[in-house]
């Protein structure tokens, strides 16, 4: 026990001295949250803005009434097309409409092509309403929308914060083994430790304990920063959250162990882990929802642990609903990863380095 405490202390000291790991563990998730929070809607969904140029008075009043009745749209008047194009260039309006009495021309900024589907839908709604109102008609059929699910899921940032936390767990867990332990192996520190009375299990346990605490603190910092800066609507189920962060960290250390055992040179493990982490970041629905990906990417996404980690963390933070048995299945799978793979790491610690 005394030896274990000494190992804990030394492991903590090593971590606190390693500024690179500290930066990546604590600062990187915050950078992600701050950047994505502001760039991609931290202030919450806002109305679309339409720049309007009327060069004819014919039905102009009808068009104004139609625009006034569009949900989540506000209209800004411009004297001519040049002024509208200038406003589009400066991003003061999202898109524009020119009405010359016979043709309604929608003007889009090509630099906002990813907003195009949403803006096109708004434009189609305007056209449909204008068509009827011009002929003095009302709708005879329309869709009445009802929101189903948690309100929190409607905000992009609420979905993204738990996913970024999931990524930080994945990254910290994998690199604890594929970066830290392999670096010790490469520098032959482990070889020296194995000739001491230290038991490899005590050493691994010390690494696991320190990393789990550090990862948990890092997730709390990310969580509270998001709550303070962006006022995200997260209702954390603390027992489930704590359990999941602990198990996920262990599971990701297991994955790190698998990578370490698969590569020939210890230093290659960190490179492979970095590549895998980056691939998973883009494919696991953290920044782009899985459901808008092409079929083959959706299949690939379903094979990645980060997809399920993000899903489970969204559930534990009250963003989405999930059947409880699914949450248990995800947690159990991650726990099995750790149970199966971490013991193999004990053998790796004492195994002489392959030449």
């Amino acid at each position, binding site marked *: 026990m005394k030896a274990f405490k000494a190992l804990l202390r030394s492991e903590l000291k090593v971590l606190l001295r390693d500024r690179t790991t500290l930066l990546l563990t604590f600062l990187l998730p915050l*950078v992600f949250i701050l950047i994505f929070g502001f760039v991609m809607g931290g202030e919450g969904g806002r109305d679309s803005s339409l720049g309007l140029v009327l060069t004819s008075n014919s039905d102009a009043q009808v068009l104004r009434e139609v625009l006034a009745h569009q949900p989540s749209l506000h209209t800004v008047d411009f004297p001519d097309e040049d002024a509208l194009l200038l406003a589009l260039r400066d991003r003061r309006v999202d898109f524009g409409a020119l009405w010359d009495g016979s043709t309604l021309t929608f003007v*889009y900024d090509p630099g906002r*092509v990813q907003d195009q589907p949403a803006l096109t839908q708004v434009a189609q709604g305007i056209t449909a309403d204008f068509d009827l109102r011009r002929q003095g008609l009302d709708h005879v059929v*329309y869709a009445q*929308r009802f929101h189903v*699910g948690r309100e929190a*899921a409607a905000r992009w940032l609420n979905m993204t914060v738990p996913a970024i936390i999931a990524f930080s767990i994945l990254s910290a867990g994998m690199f604890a083994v594929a970066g830290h332990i392999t670096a010790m192996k490469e520098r032959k520190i482990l070889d020296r430790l194995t000739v001491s009375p230290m038991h490899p299990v005590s050493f691994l346990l010390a690494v696991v304990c320190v990393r789990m605490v550090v990862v948990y603190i890092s997730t709390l910092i990310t969580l509270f920063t998001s709550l303070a800066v962006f006022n995200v609507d997260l209702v954390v189920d603390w027992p489930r959250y704590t359990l999941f962060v602990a198990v996920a960290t262990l599971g990701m250390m297991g994955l790190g162990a698998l990578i370490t055992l698969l590569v020939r040179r210890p230093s290659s493990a960190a*490179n492979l882990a970095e590549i895998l982490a980056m691939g998973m970041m883009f494919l696991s629905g953290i920044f782009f929802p899985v*459901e808008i990906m092409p079929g083959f990417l959706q299949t690939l996404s379903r094979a990645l642990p980060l997809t399920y980690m993000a899903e489970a963390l969204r559930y534990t933070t009250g963003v989405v609903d999930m059947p409880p048995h699914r949450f248990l299945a995800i947690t159990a799978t991650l726990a099995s990863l750790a149970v199966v793979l971490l013991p193999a790491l004990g053998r790796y610690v004492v195994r002489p380095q392959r030449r």
Partner: protein
Amino acid sequence: MSALCYLGFTGLLTALRERVTLFWTLLFPVLLFVLLSSIFGQVGEQGALRLNVAFVNLDRGADTGFAMAVETLFESLSVEGEDGRPPVFTLHRPVSDADPRRFLEDEQRALAYGRRAAVVVVPEGFSQEIGGALRRPGELAGKLHVHYSQGVPSSELAAGVIDQMLAELDRALLAQAGRFDEDLAVRTAIQWAGSEGHNVGYIDFLLPGVVLMAFFTTGLFGVPGAILYARDQRILRRYWVTPLSIPRYLAGFGLTILGMCVLQLTVLWPLGRFALGARVSFAAAWPAAYLALAAVTFLSFGFLVASLAKTANAGQAIANIINMPMLFLSGVFFPVADLPSVLQAMVYANPLTYLVDGLRTSLGVGAGQFAPWLTLAVPLGWISVSAVVTSRRLHWDVGR
């Protein structure tokens, strides 16, 4: 001169022999380009997504003609059209003897769990309401209940498609009743600002961004990685005992980075043009000038980072921390607007912002946000600042 070229060529070969360098400088931009274009390049296009939609018809009265018409409409969109149009929906309906209300509850739960994009309900009295609205203008219209998850992209998309379907049905019903005159329908057109009239796809927007991202990561990670590692491992010290001077080494190293940039462009441009359908062409004076300026700017920026770090590891850590903010606060992948003043200042100080803007404008992808002189002046300013800081701070040998 030949010695310089040889030095540059050797550096390039060494970089390409390292699998990690090869991945981050060539394979990663390619993968990211393909990934982003396959995700965002087709969003909103029919057939790009097949949406899981549940449909329940609760209108079981005497006159259910309109409810049946809506049902037929949804069915027609769940199979391939005669013109080869791909199906839009995968339709889930209750089996004939199932309780429709029980089915509705189950499907709403599936929607909440994200397994359905929308649940469409034809309520009781739907057909009667439409009939009434058609016969007596001003009467309440028929309301189709669309349950969806606000903010979930597939759900939003499904709700939008349903809106559009109903708008067309609305017009068709009114036209059939002789109340809507198709000849008086509004003519619509689309205009793309600053794009000389041609439609610009996401691939055209993305390609210059990915090319600049590749150049940027080469400079940001390649320069501190190579220089600081060579210094830490005392490899540079061995160079300095040869007749090679620091300026000549620098010039050779610069050629290596520029060669890598050329290689990246050679891979990404044809990929975008021939495999992904990009229409932009870099083979013109201004785009080429912006690419050259970008390569030099990021090369000097890499030296700036190298001069701020004490070791190769610290250099990589700095590069990792500033990589994402610089990429995402520049509009490489997504436009940036409506930011708080601190982040806005970072956007305006970021050389990548101006290079992306200038390059896209020169390629005809939209009207530039900044004046052309500014898109040249800011990167040139960064080159000057980096050169001054590097000349004062970068140590070319350990403990020197």
